[in-house]
């Protein structure tokens, strides 16, 4: 497995590529846009800014969003400038298998939806069996062995969840 998320960017003290700058700038710009739309549409929140001595519930959101917007704009300008002037060197985006990551995220959302329909443990069984079988098949190329390993892991995992969370910790997932 690769390095952990908490250490992401450890080697990033050097210059970043303009593409990465634009991506980072866009990431923060989208967040700022969503934040500003929420703040500006909240009439009570904006009115709280004129609430006497208390700077109000809107004070820190406006301050933080303002600073974030400024930072996002500067990163975008830096990226555009370097792109225009042809200085494309530096670290790019971290490599990753995006289709697999997106598939996992979508299947997790499906798992959450499945919980409401068939219950926690059956949904977990289907999810873990499918993923283990697929990953095992991709690893070994043997379909029967992959299916068996998927089934075994799912049964063991559901048994563990039942014993730990339902029986001992009384979490209602049964």
């Amino acid at each position, binding site marked *: *497995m*690769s390095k*952990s*998320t*908490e250490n*992401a*960017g*450890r*080697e*990033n*003290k050097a210059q*970043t590529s303009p593409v990465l700058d634009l991506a*980072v700038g866009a990431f923060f710009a989208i967040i700022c846009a969503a*934040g500003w739309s*929420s703040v500006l549409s*909240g009439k*009570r*929140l904006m009115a*709280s800014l004129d*609430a006497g*001595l*208390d*700077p109000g*519930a*809107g*004070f*820190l*959101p406006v301050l*933080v969003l303002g600073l974030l917007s400024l*930072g996002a704009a500067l990163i975008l300008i830096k990226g555009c400038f370097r792109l225009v002037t042809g200085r494309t060197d530096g670290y790019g985006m*971290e490599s*990753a*298998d995006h289709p*697999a*990551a997106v598939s*996992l*995220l979508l299947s*997790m*959302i499906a*798992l*959450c939806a499945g919980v*409401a329909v068939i219950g*926690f443990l059956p949904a*977990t069984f289907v*999810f*873990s069996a499918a*993923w*283990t079988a*697929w*990953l*095992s098949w*991709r*690893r070994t190329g043997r379909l029967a062995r992959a299916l068996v390993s998927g089934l075994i*892991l799912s049964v063991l*995992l559901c048994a563990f969840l039942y014993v*730990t*969370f339902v029986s001992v*910790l009384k*979490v209602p*997932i049964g």
Partner: protein
Amino acid sequence: MLNDFLSALGTTLMSPWGLMLAVLGTVLGVVLGAMPGISSTMALAILLPISFSMDPHLAILFLLAVFVASVYGGSISAILINIPGTPGAIVTQLDGYPMARSGRAGEALTFALVSSTLGGLIGLLVLVLVAPMLAAAAMEFRSPEFTAVAVFGLVLLAYASPGSTIRGMMVGGLGLLCGMMGFDSLTDIPRFTFDSPVLEGGIELVPLCVGLFGFAEVMKNIGTAGRSYTKSVMPAIGRLWPPMKELLGQWKTMLRGSFIGASVGAIPAAGSAIAVAIAYAQEVRFSKRPDEFGKGVTEGVVAPESANSSSIGGTLIPMMTLGIPGDAITAVLMGSLLIHGLRPGPELFANNPEFVSGVYSSFFLALILTLVIGLLLMRWVAWVTRIPSHILLVVIAVLCVVGSFAIRNTMSDVYIMLAFGLIGYLLNLFRLPAAPLAFGLILGPLLEENLRRSLILGRGSWDIFINSPIALTLLLMSLGAILLPLVAPWFVRLRDDLRRTYPTLGRRRR
């Protein structure tokens, strides 16, 4: 102090349930820490939900056992297969693996375990000595000082995080925004809820940490997990105990590493990875045979492992006394305390001293159990490094879902966890540090509450921060930390220009 410590230790030892939890936590910590790719943070994040239903003392005992044991566990895979189980074990592999390759794997593991235990004990000693003094000093703090502490903590955490400081602070700002979601505690005005019932209750620290440090890792690694792999060649464990003279002869190295670890660990966000690097570098400097480092010298294992373990005590100091998490792991630990209604800070020492003693005794017990269980499991724990990563990832993904659900028995937290998993994945993709997001969420309420109270007390004037010497100093240091990375390249360029213009400048006189 000593009486409270012994009393808390006695209570834990007399409780079969407590002892069982401590043993279970230690075994899980060693096993999870030994698995490549599972950091201590991830291990804590996925096991955190198990502690929700426990009494706070038992919860912290269980989590500290996992924490301490996983720190040692990280060295197992570093020594045996040259892959650090945790970021803190990254330096241990430099000499640990060559030792293992030369038939001294068992000895290297024992050196790591013993130095880890001694380092942990020194870290605990530093914690016990320093934390009450710092907490007593912090009791004098008022709103302006706490505002400055929150700002300074946030800046320092972003500064020490990997990558660009400014970008780290921007991620911290994102964390502050996340901390503001839901209803404002003073005025009950909704903020950033987007009319969604899921967001009206605000964002809990635990689903954020589980998503950021657990699910994001799974998303990142799932693509490579199923691919064909090459099995690591695992050397034979061999003899476990090194000659006693050689073990005892390492006391200076252990002490040096331990004090470096505890000191560096106490700096917010410096973390174990920096502590072990400094300890290793210092050991090379002190050594009479520096050329042999990297080829399997014992000091190369002892120094970083002592520092790694002693940094735990250091990281707990700012968390316990000021409510500032020392690193991502203590942020997760803090999440557990918050779930149990305990807010770390100076008031914890004043209002709940028995809990503080419980933390000390739990830490001590975790260290001793790690030593005992580590020795017992040493010959068998190696097999966990062979568990296929795809099985681990599927299990962790499911535990992330169940764990997030278990916080409040609602699917809202699961969706929040998934959202932060995606954000964590994107942060990694953009080479941005994830930890400041958690720090922002933790420090946000502290900052906002005290900032607003300060401005009310100062009748709207910001002079209140200038009139407090502590607040002013901390704010100036924060400003310095922000400006330093901006102006440093200019100074470097100026120095280079001067050297080019005046080639004799800076040369030593002969």
